[in-house]
């Protein structure tokens, strides 16, 4: 029962916070942090004890008795939500302060709480109707958070795109839950593996939750929304909100039977999302858009784990399924942590320089060392490099896949491309983040605004530090977090109750620890040596060129040029340039832009077709009465025809 009280405390904290959002932001923050802490404790309690908190009330809401339920899987996501909600709130106090945003800051606080509350409810509701309510409210509050700067046109456009896409997803879920209710006779849901007639519903769930999760062809809303939202909002959207889609998929693939093809489809979608997501990211020059595309990539990695786990369970619970699933699940946490860290870092950069355009930044390390350091930490983590958390989860997925191949099971053939492409994804991500760190923080400032950059205050750095520590913790001592993962995956597949940590997990942790310490030591040692030998400062070697300018540094576009060239078939980068001409060329220009291919090549044409139809139809309303009466008669005739046909039948 204790988790229930904790959750109650959390809810009251968040709700009370709403009321003080306008008058007393300080109390808002306090209440929020208290609530987040309580929620986190509750989640840890559930994860630690593996028990299930189940609470029914006779009080009907919308005609259905309230039924809340928190099991390990829900708690797993709840923990992430609580952490990011708390740190995001702290960050917002400085980043979106009332001085710079007098009108939108209080609303931002209110919607922030609403978002957290509703996401938590999504995790708690065990009734389809209430799930839908929480789901849509969460989407709505997300919309209002994204469009806090509603006076800017691109923000409005991005917000609308997000809202439209999420509503489309919600309608898929309408259909999903409605047919679930129609076939089971009740809105309640729970483990229903023994109803084979529910299998086809999986496709509806995939569409609905996939739109939220932003897996590849359905990701169209994601980049612009995450780019235009305030950074703490981007952080929670990318860290938790899109994970709600993953939660839905894991929840219902675990509870409902799925068609045989499901696992394969999910796995393929995962691979595609991973590779293309990072490929698109490489083409971006906008820092936050780039990070947004990496969300697509990481969702892909998670789905690879989930997909192969599903394949395995479809073919008799191969043991390796658990590793793949655990890897995917742990990656949910990891991606949440380091992506939030990166977005907060990007926000700090935006706050300091006023631009997200990477080719206008550079050399920020000197001005804002803490931000730069923490951002780089996050970059190493997201590139899946040891000794940080990103590697651990990807490593688990790899192990699962390798075992699958060694087992020469049904999935073996599919594993080979999956492994190779996963590796390629990792290498691409590495390239991408070398580019980001190099272009944004290293080198010399490219513009005036970058020169005038300043370090953010501790209210912004503190949250980033917390997230960085969490990333390091999972990386250095993964075995501590294994029980949570194991319990959560046991919810998905009850056969995995006694899941001892794979022995090598300990060793990896030890290796990471050694690597980290030795690396630090080595760096210090070399630095001391350098000091002892004496340092002389000069300009970067410029090949004897007379007047080098910062503009001559390698730009983001040129850095990723080779790779974007390889992916030109889908990225379709658009280059506009005026080459040098004549003896005394006046000026030359070069600009590159990578469009959102799916949106601009697929969705927009389709939309324009619909609009054309609508315009054609609207012409019928031309204001001539005679014609209207004719319509009336036509309607009459049509009905008569219909009736007579029925009479004949």
């Amino acid at each position, binding site marked *: 029962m204790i988790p229930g009280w904790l959750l109650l405390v959390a809810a009251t904290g968040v709700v009370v916070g709403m009321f003080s959002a306008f008058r007393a932001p300080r109390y808002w923050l306090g209440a929020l942090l208290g609530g987040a802490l309580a929620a986190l404790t509750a989640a840890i309690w559930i994860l630690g004890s593996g028990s299930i908190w189940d609470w029914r009330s006779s009080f*009907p*809401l*919308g*005609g259905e008795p309230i039924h809340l339920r928190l099991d390990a899987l829900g708690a797993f996501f709840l923990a992430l939500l609580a952490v990011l909600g708390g740190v995001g709130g702290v960050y917002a106090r400085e980043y979106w302060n009332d001085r710079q945003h007098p009108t939108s800051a209080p609303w931002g606080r209110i919607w922030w709480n609403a978002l957290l509350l509703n996401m938590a409810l999504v995790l708690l509701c065990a009734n389809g*109707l209430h799930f*839908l*309510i929480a789901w*849509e*409210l969460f989407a*709505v509050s997300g919309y209002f958070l994204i*469009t806090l700067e*509603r*006076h800017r*046109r691109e923000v*409005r456009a991005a917000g*609308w795109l997000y*809202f*439209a896409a999420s*509503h*489309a997803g919600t*309608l898929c879920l*309408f*259909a999903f839950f*409605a*047919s679930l*209710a*129609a076939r089971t006779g009740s809105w309640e849901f729970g483990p229903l593996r023994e109803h084979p007639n529910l299998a086809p519903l999986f496709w509806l769930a995939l569409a609905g939750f996939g739109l939220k999760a932003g897996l590849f062809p359905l990701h169209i809303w994601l980049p612009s929304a995450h780019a235009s939202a305030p950074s703490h909002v981007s952080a929670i959207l990318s860290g938790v909100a899109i994970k709600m889609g993953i939660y839905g998929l894991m929840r219902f693939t675990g509870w409902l039977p799925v068609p045989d093809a499901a696992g394969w489809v999910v796995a393929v979608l995962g691979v595609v999302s991973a590779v293309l997501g990072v490929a698109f990211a490489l083409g971006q020059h906008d820092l936050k858009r780039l990070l947004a595309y990496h969300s697509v990539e990481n969702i892909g990695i998670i789905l690879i784990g989930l997909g192969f786990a599903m394949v395995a369970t479809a073919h008799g619970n191969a043991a390796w399924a658990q590793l793949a699933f655990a890897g995917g699940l742990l990656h949910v946490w990891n991606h949440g942590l380091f992506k939030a860290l990166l977005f907060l870092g990007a926000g700090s950069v935006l706050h300091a320089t006023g631009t997200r355009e990477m080719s206008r930044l550079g050399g920020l390390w000197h001005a804002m060392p803490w931000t730069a350091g923490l951002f780089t930490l996050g970059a190493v983590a997201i590139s899946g490099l040891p000794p940080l958390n990103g590697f651990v989860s990807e490593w688990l997925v790899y192990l699962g896949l390798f075992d699958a191949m060694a087992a020469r099971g049904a999935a073996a053939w599919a594993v080979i491309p999956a492994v190779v492409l996963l590796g390629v994804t990792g290498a691409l991500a590495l390239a991408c983040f070398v580019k980001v760190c190099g272009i944004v923080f290293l080198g010399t400032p490219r513009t005036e605004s970058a020169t005038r950059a300043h370090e953010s205050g501790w209210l912004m750095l503190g949250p980033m530090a917390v997230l960085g520590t969490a990333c390091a913790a999972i990386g250095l001592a993964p075995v501590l977090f294994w029980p949570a993962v194991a319990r959560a995956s046991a919810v998905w597949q009850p056969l995995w109750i006694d899941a001892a940590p794979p022995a090598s997990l300990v060793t990896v942790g030890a290796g990471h620890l050694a690597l980290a310490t030795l690396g630090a030591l080595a760096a210090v040692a070399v630095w001391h040596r350098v000091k002892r030998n004496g340092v002389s400062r000069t300009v970067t070697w410029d090949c004897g060129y007379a007047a080098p300018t910062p503009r001559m540094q390698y730009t983001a576009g040129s850095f990723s040029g080779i790779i974007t060239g390889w992916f030109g078939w889908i990225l379709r980068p658009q280059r506009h340039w005026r080459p040098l001409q004549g003896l005394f060329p006046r000026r030359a220009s070069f600009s590159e832009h990578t469009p959102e291919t799916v949106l601009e090549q697929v969705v927009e044409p389709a939309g324009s077709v*619909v*609009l054309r*139809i*609508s*315009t054609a*139809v*609207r012409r019928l*309303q031309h*204001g001539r*009465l005679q014609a*209207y*009466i004719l*319509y*009336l008669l*036509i*309607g*009459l005739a049509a*009905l*008569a025809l*219909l*009736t*007579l046909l*029925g*009479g004949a039948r």
Partner: protein
Amino acid sequence: MKELALILIPLAASGAAFAWPSERTRPWLLPAVGAVHVVLALTLLVTPPPLVPGAWFGFDPLARATLPAVSLLFLVCAAYAVAYLKLRSERRNRVFVAALLAMLGLLSLAMQSQHLGLLWVAAEAATLTTVPLLHFNGTARAFEATWKYLLIGGTGIALSLLGSFCLGYASLHGGGAGDLTFAALAAQGAALTRPWLLAAWVLLLTGYGTKMGLAPMHTWKPDAYGEAPAIVGAVLAGGMTTMAFVAVLRVKQVLDAAGAGEMTSRTLLVLGLFSMIVAALFLLGTPDFKRMLAYSSVEHMGILAVGAALGGAGMAAALFHVWNNSLTKGALFLSAGNLRRAAGGRTVNEVAGMAWRAPMSSRILVVGLLAITACPPFGPFFSELRIVRTALETSHGTAAALFLGCLLLAFFGMTRLVFAIVDGRPRTATRATGDHLRETAGTIVPPLVFLGCSLWLGLATPSLLRETWNVAASLLAPAP
């Protein structure tokens, strides 16, 4: 005799209003009568009177399931009307008030009438009373709208008269004693002559469908709603259409009794889906936010038709949706009226940035928009979800898919338009708001009340109402 009072009090009050001397105090008649009406309706809802067999009108389950909604709608609109008429003091309100009250009385008569002819008479009379309401603004556009409303509506109503005659003749030819109460007709059942019956259904459906505003007979709607004052729009969209829907249901009941249920359901389903599709297509493109409301109303009439066609739980959901539609639409119309006055324009080209000019109304409009587009936790979400569920239970998969698709398109269209109007960059060209365009409690509270009702209907539907709908549904569409 409360049910009679429901009819007579408003009519008497309308007469009084006509004679009332003071322009300033006359509008107060509206909320007064509305309050009485609501009280009566609710008492009747709680303690339904026994039905007199063979009576020409009575508070039967169907009336019980729908009339209180209209009464509630009228009360809130009446409260708004007081503030509104104060703002529009430059125009005489004698006819306006009188006609509004008369319409209430005739609506309650039509929705209670158990007699084919009486139903028609009341419906036609109610139609006529709306004419002075429509051209209250007295602009040329208003007269044009009225003209179209009158001729199209008149033609429709004429067709329904022809239909009524056909039905009457069917019973006559089937050996009926010429008793045209629905009970008697239903009792006659299969004895009704088939060809006349079918003709009657087609004509009546077209006729009352025109009043409901089902496509393709909806053409009068955008003009009328676009030009009439907000209150009139609300009462038309929530009251008149509901009345027409009730009429269709009563006729359907007879047809079902005559064993033509399968046919009526199919026609209703097709007509409803067609209306939804047409409405969705119009919503995608229309630049005028008052006409948008009209098309949205067309869409919701389609939803009602689909629900009714599905029968059983679908019918109950449709009756539920009657309430949701009336009350939520009310909020939309009233807030849109405020914006219209504050902005001095109606199309997205003229109006933008209303969030700064009229913040409260803008917020209400946005929330109402979310409510009407089936965003939880407002009422429409629940009723529409139930309709979808019923469609899936009765294996109307395609219908459900079309239904959801239309909802999505409508959502796209409406959100685009409304967000552009509310959040868009304010035009400097638009006229500065005079102080008589300020947001006053009188113009803000009523729509808020509507939203409250919608929320309350959704989250905590009174079991009494639920049970009322189920009774009416089981009566209308006995489960096969």
